[in-house]
């Protein structure tokens, strides 16, 4: 018994170690380059392309290394009058939940491809993900800076508000697929509607998808919802006082959240690891090449949503704090409630 538990733990730890540092953190580091490069393309600029190793520039990819070195070599300043313990702890309090949530994300067809196939999958993501707000709030409060404090107040209000709509948006999906286990939801999306259209979340719940995208971008605190770090008035919001690797931690947290949103959108609305028009029959799932292809499909969709979010971030403007709140409570929340109602009625009548 004990041996089994230890074995399961070791397996989970290995899978987590491969998924999180191997994919999520690597992609997060890459995103620091994607973001600068993609925005440069939008804005008719060249973008970062100067860092080179032995004359090889590789489209500025080495800027990832250069940036990391730069962050690492800076002093971690702890401002006078701050609470040093909480100030140092805050970035990790925000980062840990942002990384832990990846544990329930099924990236492939069988249980082999998920760290922990929890039955409460999505609820786990919401429960742990919402802990991130503590990190940001504590960071703002412990900095002993009025700009940070205002940022912290905004971030806590915004994240708590949008958490409600975010969860409600997905209720319609739970009702359609009859489960909150992510693996079950993805398997449910393998069917074909009328033999033509894949039964993806976006097809059966189109309204929920757009509301989910809006609400989850608000959760990541990026433009147009970046009032908490609203640069013109609050300098950098709750992480104004951070420097060095602590600041890099905040960026990584933000990018990890972006990847999480992309993975959630993929898993719940875009068929997860499903390859369209290729139903995963048990015989097919048993083959290793099909599993690998599914994992590739999942990551490709994730990258697509990362790209979408980047594009949105550099196209849209920043909303005002009260407009963000109005949108959350007066538009997204009622519409998602109505969506739940309509979905329920539809399911009831067609049963």
């Amino acid at each position, binding site marked *: 018994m004990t041996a089994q538990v230890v074995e399961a733990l070791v397996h989970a730890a290995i899978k987590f170690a491969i998924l999180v540092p191997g994919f999520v953190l690597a992609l997060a580091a890459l995103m620091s380059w994607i973001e600068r490069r993609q925005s440069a393309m939008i*804005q008719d600029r060249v973008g970062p392309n100067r860092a080179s190793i032995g004359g090889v520039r590789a489209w500025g990819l080495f800027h990832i290394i250069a940036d990391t070195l730069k962050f690492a070599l800076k002093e971690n300043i702890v401002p006078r009058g701050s609470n040093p313990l909480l100030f140092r702890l805050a970035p990790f309090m925000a980062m840990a939940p942002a990384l832990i949530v990846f544990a329930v994300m099924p990236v492939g067809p069988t249980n082999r491809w998920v760290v922990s196939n929890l039955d409460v999958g999505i609820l786990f993501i919401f429960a742990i993900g919402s802990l991130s707000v503590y990190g940001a709030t504590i960071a703002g409060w412990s900095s002993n800076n*009025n700009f940070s404090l*205002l940022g912290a107040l905004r971030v806590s209000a915004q994240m708590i508000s949008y958490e409600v709509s975010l969860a409600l948006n997905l209720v319609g999906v739970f009702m359609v697929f009859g489960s909150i286990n992510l693996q079950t939801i993805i398997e449910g999306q393998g069917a074909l509607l009328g033999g033509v259209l894949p039964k993806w979340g976006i097809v059966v719940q189109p309204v929920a998808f757009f509301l989910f995208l809006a609400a989850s971008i608000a959760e990541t605190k990026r433009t147009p919802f970046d009032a908490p770090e609203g640069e013109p008035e609050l300098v950098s919001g709750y992480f104004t006082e951070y420097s060095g690797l602590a600041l890099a931690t905040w960026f990584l947290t933000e990018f990890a959240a972006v990847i999480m949103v992309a993975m959630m959108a993929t898993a719940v609305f875009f068929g997860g690891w499903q390859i369209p028009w290729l139903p995963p029959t048990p015989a097919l799932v048993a083959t290793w090449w099909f599993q690998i292809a599914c994992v590739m499909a999942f990551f490709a969709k994730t990258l697509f949503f990362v790209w979408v979010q980047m594009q949105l971030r550099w196209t849209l*403007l920043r909303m005002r704090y009260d407009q963000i709140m109005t949108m959350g409570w007066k538009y997204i929340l009622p519409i998602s409630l109505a969506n739940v109602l309509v979905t329920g009625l539809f399911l009831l009548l067609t049963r």
Partner: protein
Amino acid sequence: MSTETVREYLTEEEEDRIGLHTQEMILNMGPSHPATHGTVKFTLRLEGETIRDLDPDIGYLHRGFEKMCENATYTHAFPYTDRLNYCSPFINNVGYALAVEKLLGIEITERCKYVRTIISELHRISDHLTCLAATSLELGAFTVFLYGVQSREEIYVLTEEICGARLTVSYVRIGGLTDDLPESFADHWKLVKRRLDKNLYDIDKLIGRNRIFIDRMQNTGILDTETAISYGCTGPFLRACGVEYDVRDAAPYLVYDRLDWTMPTGTRGDNWDRFLIRLAEIEQSISMIDQCIEQMPEGPVRIDDWRVVLPPKDEVYNSIEAMMAHFKLIMEGLKVPPGEVYSYTEGANGELGFFIVSDGSGKPSRVHVRPPCYHLVAALPEIMRGKLIQDLVPTFDTINMIGGEIDR
């Protein structure tokens, strides 16, 4: 943060009732802060996100412009005027030259009038572009900012072709200009205009109908007409309130009465109106420059009076009269009859006035500038009281405070 005393804004009974201790927050924005470009400090008294009071603290860019002018000849003041509004130095040059010429009572040549109009309108475009770009940047539209600044850069290149400098132009002289426009000007302007049109179209496509942008601009930063007039606001700010006041129209100078142009006005006096007025004024300025190039006569750009303008170099080296005139102008400066004058022109942000007192010597006895944005910043607390802290950003941007001009 601040050592100022904080006023508690709830009575003790109210605090007891809600069981919380509350107090106002003092927030010092600036002088080194992303929103306070142009170097200004705002002391905000905040109640949550709401601004209870705002105290703009100017003077961080004070260089003593007015005092410096008293110690230089009338001509030497031109480089100082370049640095007043550093977004539109040509307009300052022209405004100062017109003031001194009014006191001298001289009439400049026709061609010079047209050239001065062209360069003024050129820099009005560049000033408005800077303002629009900065506003968009602070609301999160980084792309629009770069498009705007790209167009401004092209105007700077054109400026460089005219006078050899991008920013510190010193192009205008009392009684004329340093030199005529380059021959290639008309062609180069056509190129700049084409690129500018394209960028303005792109900017309009990006934010002209963007819901978020309109929500941030519309119905924010409103100032009613009476208060605006009582504070002495002018320019796009006053025209956004619906008042048809433009110095170019009310008291035409140079050749503005010969040009065909309209004055865009707003109705609500909010940030959105000011933004649209600036966009419309860019188009008007483009058309004005086109008309000027068409109407411009040939001829000299300087008057033929050696008591005011420097004689040509070959005359200086070959005739005693020119040599004397040159010496007197350089060593003593041009002599302006005693008296005082207030001359006003339409700067990019409003009425740009120069008040000059002369005692008959080669140096001004007193020079005072009426910077347009001084009065706008004075009205800022009136606008922002009771509004949200985030509204300060677009409002301050559409005011377009220029540190060099307001702090002098």
